[in-house]
């Protein structure tokens, strides 16, 4: 590109002005001009182009005196023609993005042809004039001038086309993504951070807030829907863990292998698991509870484990029904089983097993 302008610059500095002209056009592609302003803008551009052409002719005419008046006149004509074609290409490109197809109107074709004709006329006049003034070989000059004319007309056009299309599409995608991320972070993370600052005297509350925000952000980043009714056991278990985390300000680390539909028995299993987590949170005196669930073809097993105090199962008072009622009762009613492993100082692990219904197998 620059080489072309350098060649042009040899002729009375026209290249510099042509460069300026191109520079003037480039930033426009980034602006999304409203449809209604189009006509006005076109007129402004046309007037600007004509003024520029005349300006170039006058300016170089003054500089070079009588000698270059014959040269700059044709060049200015060619320049205006080129500018019209470039401009039209720019418009056609915009139309194509808007309409999604390469539809160039009648006026567009007329303008392109007229611009091309201007260029040809300018170049021809230039050659005729120079042939009589200078003693250079006509063949060399005409080949060179034609090449330059074609290059100036097409090369910038294609480069612009490719670059504009690409950068505009990228910018649009970026803007949309940014807006979505900003909206989400504002509603979630910023709100939580504000809450944390207010609650900074209560470590328990801060921890709870941070943990629940972490969970929410994770599910957003890694694509799991939250807040909807669970249809699968993995989602149901994740929700139960989340509720326990929120209610008791502890961390529940959960691992689920496989997945299945959430029918009656599985719902009971999830409820019993949650009860086991609640027990661990209340009595074990630990900051973390591990939950592991595995879905197999014939059964689903859940392990709820803590490394806390543990207890002596035989010494549990009669009136404490958490384990007996909420866990064991629920499980046995649906044909499940409960196993308990604990001893004072050894932590506690509740193992829950629920058979899968034959027709529900996947």
């Amino acid at each position, binding site marked *: 590109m620059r080489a072309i302008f350098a060649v042009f610059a040899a002729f009375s500095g026209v290249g510099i002005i042509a460069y300026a002209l191109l520079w003037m056009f480039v930033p426009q592609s980034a602006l999304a001009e409203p449809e209604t302003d189009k006509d006005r803008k076109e007129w402004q551009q046309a007037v600007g182009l004509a003024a520029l052409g005349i300006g170039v002719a006058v300016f170089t005419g003054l500089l070079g005196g009588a000698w270059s008046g014959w040269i700059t006149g044709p060049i200015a004509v060619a320049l205006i023609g080129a500018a019209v074609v470039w401009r039209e290409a720019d418009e056609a490109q915009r139309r194509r993005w808007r309409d999604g197809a390469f539809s160039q109107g009648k006026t567009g074709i007329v303008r392109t042809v007229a611009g091309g004709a201007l260029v040809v006329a300018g170049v021809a006049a230039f050659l005729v004039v120079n042939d009589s003034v200078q003693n250079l070989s006509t063949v060399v000059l005409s080949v060179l001038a034609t090449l330059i004319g074609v290059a100036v007309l097409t090369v910038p056009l294609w480069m612009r086309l490719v670059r504009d299309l690409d950068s505009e599409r990228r910018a649009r995608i970026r803007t949309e993504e940014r807006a979505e991320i900003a909206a989400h972070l504002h509603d979630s993370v910023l709100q939580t951070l504000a809450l944390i600052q207010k609650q900074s005297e209560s470590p328990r509350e801060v921890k709870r807030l941070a943990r629940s925000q972490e969970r929410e952000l994770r599910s957003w980043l*890694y*694509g*799991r829907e939250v807040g909807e009714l669970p249809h699968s056991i*993995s989602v149901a278990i994740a929700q139960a863990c989340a509720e326990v985390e929120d209610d008791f300000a502890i961390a529940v*680390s959960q*691992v*689920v292998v*496989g997945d299945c539909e959430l029918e009656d028995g599985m719902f009971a299993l999830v409820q019993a698991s949650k009860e086991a987590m609640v027990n661990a949170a209340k009595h074990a005196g630990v900051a973390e509870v591990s939950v*592991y669930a*595995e879905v197999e073809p014939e059964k689903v097993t859940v392990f709820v484990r803590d490394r806390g105090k543990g207890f002596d199962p035989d010494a549990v008072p009669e009136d404490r029904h958490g384990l007996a009622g909420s866990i064991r009762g629920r499980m046995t009613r649906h044909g499940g089983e409960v196993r308990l492993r604990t001893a004072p100082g050894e932590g506690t692990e509740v193992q829950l097993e629920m058979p899968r219904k034959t027709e529900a197998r996947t």
Partner: protein
Amino acid sequence: MSVRVFLVDDHALFRAGVKAELDTITEEIEVVGEAGSVGEAVAGIAHHRPDVVLLDVHMPDGGGAEVLRQIRTKIPEVTFLALSVSDAAEDVINVIRAGARGYVTKTISSQELVRAVVRVSEGDAVFSPRLAGFVLDAFADRPGAAPISDPELDLLTPRERDVLRLLARGYAYKEIASELFISVKTVETHVSSVLRKTQLSNRYELSRWATDRRLV
């Protein structure tokens, strides 16, 4: 002799925190260098020749997997332990398949991190409960699963499954050993063997599983 550790993480604050914790709680580990980008990491690791690299998964310019790719061919004796906030299946499986000897999340306690670093420096594998769950899931035999082309690599033995299940339940190696009536050394052997299969198995399921899986 202490284990020489190199930290790679694009968050300077996190690096400083890990370094301070490791420096204060143990003599076993010496942090010899750190890096905040893939380029810095590759140059720093080549220069310092650490025993273990603590590697962040998410970084600009390709992340931890890119560091692994560039270093593993040049300096195969350096071992990598991935340390990340991400629990996404795809990240976990990718970094393991790129050659990391283990994967732990950033919420891990300092003591556990020290144990994990020492363990990988001795050539063993470190599986967080999450990773154990992912691997179990990826190797599960479900209806319509891809055919097994290489049983040596494409299937887990029943014993390996037992070990993985206990890891997923949050058991430490010692607890697994006493639960299964085997030695800790045997547990380590099983875990290393599972790691090898996870890295080398060409089972279509494994790579597809990680990308398909929406659950975290």
